[in-house]
């Protein structure tokens, strides 16, 4: 569409270069104040998301079904690379989307399942029942949103799953101090 390459100023220091590309986006910056009646862009985007939210219940349902199918494929075919990745991606997507879809409590067990798969040095040693408990917890918490006690149920389930998962992971990684540090380390993402 626009084949012209951006120009750049290059300064060389020892064995590295510092390159300052032409800022092609500078003229997109505007100091124009909002016109009377003009909505703040963040508020406008949030409103657009609220309008889209009528879809979210169905989307959450389909993500839970996808996780369940991945669990069944794993039970039938074992921890192959494809089955493992399908289960991880399904759980990982739920972890990232649950809050946006209006089901924040579903993210807890999905996150715990991601950790279980990611940090287990030998996935074939993961107890199948532990995978089932995570998937069942995700689906149960999603269902319970209709009954208004999802938060209470989610808190209990997530704490229990996380405790069992961490015990398993710490034992499995007992000779891998770098991994143990990651398992126990906090997130460094800024808000």
């Amino acid at each position: 569409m626009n084949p012209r390459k951006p120009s750049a100023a290059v300064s060389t220091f020892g064995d590295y270069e510092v390159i300052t590309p032409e800022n092609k986006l500078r003229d997109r910056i505007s100091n124009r104040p909002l016109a009377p009646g003009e909505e703040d862009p963040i508020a406008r985007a949030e409103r657009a998301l609220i309008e889209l939210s009528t879809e979210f219940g169905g989307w959450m349902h389909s993500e839970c079904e996808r996780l369940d199918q991945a669990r069944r494929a794993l039970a039938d075919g074992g921890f192959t690379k494809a089955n493992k990745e399908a289960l991880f991606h399904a759980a990982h997507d739920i972890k990232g989307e649950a809050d946006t879809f209006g089901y924040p409590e579903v993210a807890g067990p999905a996150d715990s399942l991601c950790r279980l798969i990611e940090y287990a040095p030998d996935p074939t040693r993961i107890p199948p029942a532990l995978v089932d408990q995570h998937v069942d917890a995700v689906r149960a918490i999603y269902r319970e949103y209709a009954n208004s006690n999802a938060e209470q149920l989610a808190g209990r389930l997530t704490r229990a799953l996380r405790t069992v998962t961490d015990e398993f992971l710490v034992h499995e990684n007992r000779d891998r101090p770098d991994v143990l540090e990651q398992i126990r380390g906090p997130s460094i993402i800024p808000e």
Partner: protein
Amino acid sequence: MVRIDFNRLRFLVIDDNAHMRRIVRTLLHGFGAREVYEAEDGAAGLEAFTHYVPDIVVTDWAMPIFDGLELSQMIRQPGANANPYVAIIMLTGHSEKKRVTAARDAGITEFLAKPISAKGLYQRIVNVVVNPRPFVKTKTYFGPDRRRNANSNYAGPERRKGGKADVIKQAPLLEKVRAPEK
């Protein structure tokens, strides 16, 4: 408040999850963007990047064929495509320290952890437009300067990854304190 003419920015959203693509597209259109292109995996994303030459790429990490990290490394190849300096915002459910460091070392410009928010996405976009960082090229890295803040009081070896050390010639603070005033 600094504002941006979103209707003059071209976006490419790469995510294998159709729901998340729809959410990001909705937010971008809400900000005022008109040109939002989509791709559903890393390979299609690279093809779309070459074809559409976007101003800003918003990419997921975990994707089939090749992931967002590999895609970023392919984009950050000097001379290999139309814009190796393009702003890359990585939008991902990963938030562990090793992941953030790996993304930074792959040359991403901004990291945005899910769950996504309108404010978080808006701030990252404003930052890449208003405060673009210079790029650094070493034997092993090409991408935005990984040092976001310069420490004017730093004295010691220049620790650019993958190369010989240069020394910033600056007297240590202790010596400054001890030195008699002239």
